[in-house]
């Protein structure tokens, strides 16, 4: 978008130079500010000047004379440029190589991704100064070496060609200096009124430095106000803590100590500030080694099928609006006083709550009740009360000071801002990061009131919906480009180190605030450094010889030591159960649930192709959102998949296609946020429908009173699995899943069954040994033999591995149509199968990538030997040799090979060049590709080990998927070494190979899933509700 706008501006500027040759100009900005240009720009809306118009004009009448004039002018300008005396700036090649800088060997820097304001610690791989891959920081408490899919994808956002690249004023190219001058003037005008007309709108701020700057600003302008709004933030949790404790507190969960967990509409394993850490701790409590192993037990109550529910031992589907009733019943069952009248919502099996209550009571101090951010504060308050009653507070549930610099209710804050704008009290609105024009709740009418503000200034990564309506847009530096700091879910502070100088003329929030504070050209580094010289924990800093050493150590570790918040004692107040939330509704009434999208979150990642193309967990939907309903509700309303329906909610209408999702709560419709962007960029604009347009500030999570009306139109949704399959009667999806179980693709047992038959999943011996073959067997006695083990008990299906694989292996994005044609390029996928009834099935995820078969069906059919067996047991793919017969893919029983049907790799966008991993070929069209166990990583370590004349240590090589996996479900290593982790896992009785009956002898094997259902709730997981 932006590039397009700019090029149009250039056309216009060129016309001016043509008409006014005598005039000299120094910069495009100067020219752009000339009255002539502005008049011409206002005369015509720039976007309408498309290439076609220009062509029409030239066809209609650029005379030969004009053309010659233009040529003359260009020549004159060029000559002029040639006469300019260039500054003497010497460039000198390295005489001696700088230390630790070897071309071809990447360097890793610790930094942190601010996600929803909260830090996720990262190590970023840098090739010759350009970041290519984000990895988790093992020393960071929110990461422990793993990374979320958002962190993995953030590197693509850095290089996104649609990011805004220049400051614009009224939509035209402007300069930072001009902005600086104008904003200083504007602020000075407000000084007499102490800034009464100034408003600052940010997203969640946890950055101590930025908070200090904002406070300094507010000190200068005491009447100004700071608003914070995060569309998918933690408002309800914060308000819940205030209900329960009378003050804002932050809650940190210790899943490593929890035996019984009740998740209420909560996707704690996949979303939220601490999700990566929580998934790690949760999985650690579920590791099955042998029949003596114990497992934690997870109860999930949710309306939308979530990844967390798919992992749960007991999943109860319940409308979001009924969850409050369930919590009250649980609280009452546990003897929590003051919960009010507790009627068990319809649809909850009679023995469910008593059994749950007994289980929780049996694990006092070792259980957790966790609530999703969609639930209203009262449910959070009730959960706090239950955790207190169970003695979990202080044991598994830790309270600390709030992580946000200025905690508050964002929705409330935004409402106040809109009210002020409406009252005409806002004269200068500075927005940093937030995109309220797109994502503010519809009832506030933000955009309309926004236009009443006299001066609107926006700092943002993209020139998006909000920037479009602002006078000034300043490009924001990506977190990989700028210094900063932020805090993690437990308060741990990290310094955000830039990996690269800003690609464009962008400013970080710190530099931007410095400009507002009239400290122009203060570097963000100095600001952050300065802050921490003053605020570093004294005891920690004292361990170093000076602050510089402490600073370097903090940068190196990725965390600032001693900044984690201490546990805080809080006392339960009486108000926690205050009635609130949505009004009681008839169980037959339809409810609408708004959730952040599992891939593009609140829409801020909408222009990220890796995330848009990601098959969403369980539904496998890509490139769209949909009104998700249960099969029974679809039947009742006679809806089919892909029917476009009109959703009417609180007087607002939105048309959306229907997707029938097994396991969804009845009479509930889920609509994911983040879609329907109008100005997201080339990838995200126009994808899906905008759920914010019917979301209200009163009930941002969900609400009852939705009307559905069929429009008769159809809209094609693309899913990578179950394509065209799940119809109203659901017959076909069962067919697929039944086949999966019949073929022993998914193997699962309960803990009791497993204890009785530890080898329930084992393959028969004839399938694990070499069958007679015409060809001599490979000799694998010596050296390394790579293998992989995937623990299905740990996998949450969060998709982080897929995004990591995108980044590591230069995998192209193909777009909705190609995905629809069955041509998605992801090397690793998460298959989902269902068992049980269509209404409330058990869902099973299975990560599948190339199995690196010993007897690989792909190898012998390739006519040119482009896929061959390596001495270390890999099926290696020789891209240069591949002629593209696709025979290998046809013969692959796992269908893990991917083919470049077209030239999918982007070979033309310059900003994407530096993104690519230089160790992996960028594939051309007509070439087959597939998972290689990250061969480039194996070789990198092998070369290093050989140079040091030693063997590779176990765990020294991590594949990209393994590295990012929050639950460590994927383990890779040398299976020739019986002491290696992978060999020990493969020795477990739960080990099985996929389709081993084909004698493919896969090197990747699975550890069968073991569930831990409550014996009191008899029957398989599917029988609930």
């Amino acid at each position, binding site marked *: 978008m932006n590039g397009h706008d700019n090029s149009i501006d250039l056309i216009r500027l060129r016309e001016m130079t043509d008409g006014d040759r005598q005039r000299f100009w120094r910069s495009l900005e100067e020219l752009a500010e000339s009255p002539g240009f502005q008049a011409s720009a206002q005369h015509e809306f720039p976007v309408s000047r498309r290439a076609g118009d220009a062509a029409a004009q030239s066809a209609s009448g650029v005379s030969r004379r004009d053309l010659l004039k233009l040529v003359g002018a260009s020549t004159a300008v060029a000559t002029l440029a040639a006469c300019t005396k260039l500054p003497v700036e010497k460039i000198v090649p390295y005489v001696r190589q700088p230390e630790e800088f070897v071309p071809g060997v990447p360097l890793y820097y610790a930094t942190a991704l601010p996600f929803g304001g909260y830090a996720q610690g990262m190590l970023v791989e840098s090739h010759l100064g350009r970041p290519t891959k984000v990895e988790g920081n093992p020393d960071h408490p929110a990461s422990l070496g793993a990374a979320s899919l958002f962190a993995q994808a953030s590197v693509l956002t850095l290089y996104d060609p649609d990011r805004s690249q220049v400051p614009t004023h009224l939509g035209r190219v402007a300069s930072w200096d001009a902005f600086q001058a104008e904003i200083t003037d504007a602020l000075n005008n407000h000084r007499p009124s102490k800034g009464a007309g100034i408003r600052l709108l940010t997203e969640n701020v946890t950055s101590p430095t930025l908070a200090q700057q904002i406070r300094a600003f507010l000190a200068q302008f005491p009447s100004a106000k700071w608003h914070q709004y995060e569309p998918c933030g933690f408002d309800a949790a914060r308000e819940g803590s205030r209900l329960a404790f009378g003050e804002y507190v932050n809650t940190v969960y210790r899943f490593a100590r929890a035996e019984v967990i009740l998740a209420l509409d909560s996707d704690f394993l996949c979303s939220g500030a601490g999700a990566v850490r929580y998934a790690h701790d949760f999985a650690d409590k579920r590791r099955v080694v042998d029949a003596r192993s114990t497992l934690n037990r997870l109860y999930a109550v949710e309306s939308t099928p979530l990844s967390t529910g798919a992992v749960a031992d007991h999943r109860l589907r319940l409308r979001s609006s009924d969850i409050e009733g369930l919590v009250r019943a649980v609280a009452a069952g546990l003897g929590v006083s003051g919960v009010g009248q507790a009627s068990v919502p319809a649809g909850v099996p009679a023995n469910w709550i008593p059994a749950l209550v007994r289980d929780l009571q049996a694990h006092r101090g070792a259980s957790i009740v966790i609530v999703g951010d969609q639930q209203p504060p009262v449910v959070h308050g009730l959960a706090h009360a239950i955790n207190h009653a169970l003695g979990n507070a202080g044991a598994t549930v830790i309270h600390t000071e709030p992580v946000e610099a200025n905690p508050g209710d964002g929705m409330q804050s935004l409402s106040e801002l809109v009210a002020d704008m409406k009252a005409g009290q806002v004269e200068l609105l500075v927005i940093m990061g937030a995109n309220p024009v797109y994502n503010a709740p519809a009832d506030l009418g933000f955009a309309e009131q926004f236009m009443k503000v006299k001066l609107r200034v926006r700092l943002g990564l993209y020139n998006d919906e909000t920037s479009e309506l602002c006078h000034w847009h300043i490009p924001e530096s990506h977190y990989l480009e700028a210094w900063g700091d932020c805090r993690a879910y437990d308060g741990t502070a990290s310094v955000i180190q830039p990996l690269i100088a800003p690609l464009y003329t962008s400013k970080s929030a710190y530099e931007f605030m410095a400009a507002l504070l009239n400290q122009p050209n203060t570097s963000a580094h100095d600001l952050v450094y300065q802050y921490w010289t003053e605020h570093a924990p004294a005891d920690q800093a004292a361990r170093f010889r000076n602050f510089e050493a402490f600073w370097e150590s903090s940068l190196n570790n990725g965390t600032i030591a001693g900044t984690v918040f201490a546990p805080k004692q809080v006392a339960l107040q009486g108000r926690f159960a205050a009635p609130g939330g949505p009004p009681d509704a008839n169980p037959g009434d339809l409810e609408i649930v708004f959730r952040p999208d599992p891939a593009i979150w609140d829409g801020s990642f909408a222009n990220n192709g890796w995330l848009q193309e990601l098959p969403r967990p369980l539904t496998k939907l890509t490139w769209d959102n949909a009104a998700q309903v249960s099969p029974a509700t679809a039947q009742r309303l006679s809806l089919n998949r892909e029917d476009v329906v009109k959703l009417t909610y609180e007087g607002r209408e939105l048309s959306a296609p229907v997707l029938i999702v097994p396991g969804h709560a009845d009479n509930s419709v889920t609509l994911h946020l983040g879609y329907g962007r109008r100005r997201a960029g080339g990838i995200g604009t126009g994808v899906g429908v905008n759920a914010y347009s019917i979301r209200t500030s009163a009930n941002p999570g969900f609400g009852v009173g939705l009307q559905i009306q069929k429009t008769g139109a159809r809209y094609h949704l693309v899913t990578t*699995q179950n394509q065209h399959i799940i119809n109203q009667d659901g017959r076909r999806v069962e067919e697929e899943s039944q086949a*999966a179980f019949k073929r022993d693709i998914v193997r699962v047992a309960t803990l009791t069954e497993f204890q009785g038959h530890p080898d329930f999943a084992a393959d028969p011996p004839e399938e694990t040994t070499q069958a007679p073959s015409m060809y001599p067997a490979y000799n694998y006695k010596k050296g390394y033999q790579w293998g992989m083990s995937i623990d299905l008990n740990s996998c949450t299906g969060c998709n982080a591995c897929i995004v990591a694989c995108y980044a590591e292996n230069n995998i192209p994005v193909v777009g909705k149509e190609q995905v629809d044609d*069955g041509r998605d390029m992801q090397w690793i996928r998460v*298959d989902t199968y269902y068992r049980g009834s269509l209404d409330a099935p058990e869902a099973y995820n299975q990560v599948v990538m190339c199995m690196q078969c010993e007897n690989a069906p792909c190898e012998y059919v390739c006519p040119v030997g482009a896929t061959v067996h390596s001495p270390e047991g890999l099926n290696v793919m020789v891209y240069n*040799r591949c*002629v593209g017969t696709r025979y290998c893919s046809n013969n692959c029983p796992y269908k893990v090979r991917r083919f470049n049907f077209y030239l999918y790799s982007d070979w033309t966008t310059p900003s994407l060049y530096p993104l690519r991993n230089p160790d992996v070929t960028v594939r051309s069209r007509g070439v087959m590709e597939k998972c290689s166990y990250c061969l480039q990583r194996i070789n990198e370590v092998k070369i290093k080990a050989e140079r040091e004349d030693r063997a590779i240590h176990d765990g020294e090589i991590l594949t990209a998927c393994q590295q990012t996996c929050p639950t460590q479900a994927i383990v890779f290593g040398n299976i020739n070494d019986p002491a290696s982790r992978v060999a020990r896992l493969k020795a477990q009785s739960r080990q099985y190979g996929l389709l081993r009956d084909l004698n493919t002898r896969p090197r990747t094997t699975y550890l069968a899933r073991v569930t831990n259902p409550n014996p009191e709730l008899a029957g398989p997981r599917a029988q609930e509700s």
Partner: protein
Amino acid sequence: MNPRDPIAEERTTLVIEEGLPVLAAGHTYKSVTDKISAIVLAKKRGRGWWIGLAIALTGFMVLNYSIAYLLAVGVGIWGINIPVGWGFAITNFVWWIGIGHAGTLISAFLLLMRQKWRTSINRFAEAMTIFAVSCAGVFPLLHMGRPWLFYWMLPYPDTMGTWPQFRSPLVWDVFAVSTYATVSVLFWFVGLIPDLATLRDRAKNLFARKIYGFLSMGWRGSAMHWSRHETATLLLAGLATPLVVSVHTVVSLDFTAAIVPGWHSTIFPPYFVAGAIYSGFAMVLTLAIPLRKFYKLDDFITLRHLDNMGKILLATGLIVAYSYMMETFMAFYSGNPYDRSMMMNRMFGPYATVYWALIVCNLFAVQTLWWPKMRRSALGLFIVSLIVQTGMWLERFVIIVTSLSRDFLPSSWGMFYPTKWDWMTFLGTIGLFFTLFYLFIRYLPMISIFELRELVHKEEESKA
């Protein structure tokens, strides 16, 4: 066609039960030569020929257009995907190769068997083989992701020391098909030499004389020439005969060697060969019946020929039916769950319509040929032959596409839908085939003149 073919009807009534003639009575060396060479040497081309050629050329241009676009953009223009990596291209390849088989069978195998009746159909059947192989050959090249590297399939000495991967059936295909194409062209050309000499001698046009003269390679009809010609023909026939069996066997190994349920089956080689001959004879009939009508060749292509070809069609059709039965039976009898669900999927899955259409086309239409009257009805045979060819195309489609669309992992099941480019490429090769065929019937004798003269000689001998 006129449904009431008066000539055929008349002949049918005159049939003497045992033995229809292979050559109508009263023909002499001269009449035979005159009649056939006149078609080639006539100044005027018939309007029908022009119209036919125009339609065929249009198809050929569509092919060229599709190929150009394919090369520019990639095989993504087709409906193929993961899991269905092979779609129309390989279906068409197998179909066209199969069609070619009848020509070789007639010219080589029946020659060795000393079947007199082959004489008047072998020339255009051989031509059909070559054209069909040309059409078939287009597809393995085009279906590659990077067709410009096709020569990597050939064993040539290169500086990298790389070779084709000889365990791959696709490499066997390269050898099988290229051998087949070479032998077929040689055989056809050697057979043409005496007739080319005849045309050279009869042509009035200097240019035609030069061309035919060049092509006839100095044939003077000496006894030595005839003797050598006879030997060469027999040798080539000996070479070509095993190819009738081997080529489609190798093609079937493309599937048999893979582990895909629905492909991995030992029954495929004989089943494919029978299918090939089945579709090939259908194509010979499709070509012969209009030819004999429009060029009034029913003296040479008699009801005897039609009857015999009908019988072969019936016989191979029954073999094909047996193969289908065995395939289905084995899928269930083997106890292999993948095979079983593959067969259930074929019969009742998303492509069930195609499967049942194939059964109807291949198994039922041909049963009408049990009746002699049907075998001697040009129109009836023509219709049956078209149905059989459609059926055989559907058979290849079903084998390739339904097997791939649902194999082992249910998560990876998918559907193949042909795009307009799939259709254009397929119909384009039909255009190519008929373009070549129209040129052939205009510029080369479509019936072997010298062999017919031999036949006249033998008939006279037998009468004497």
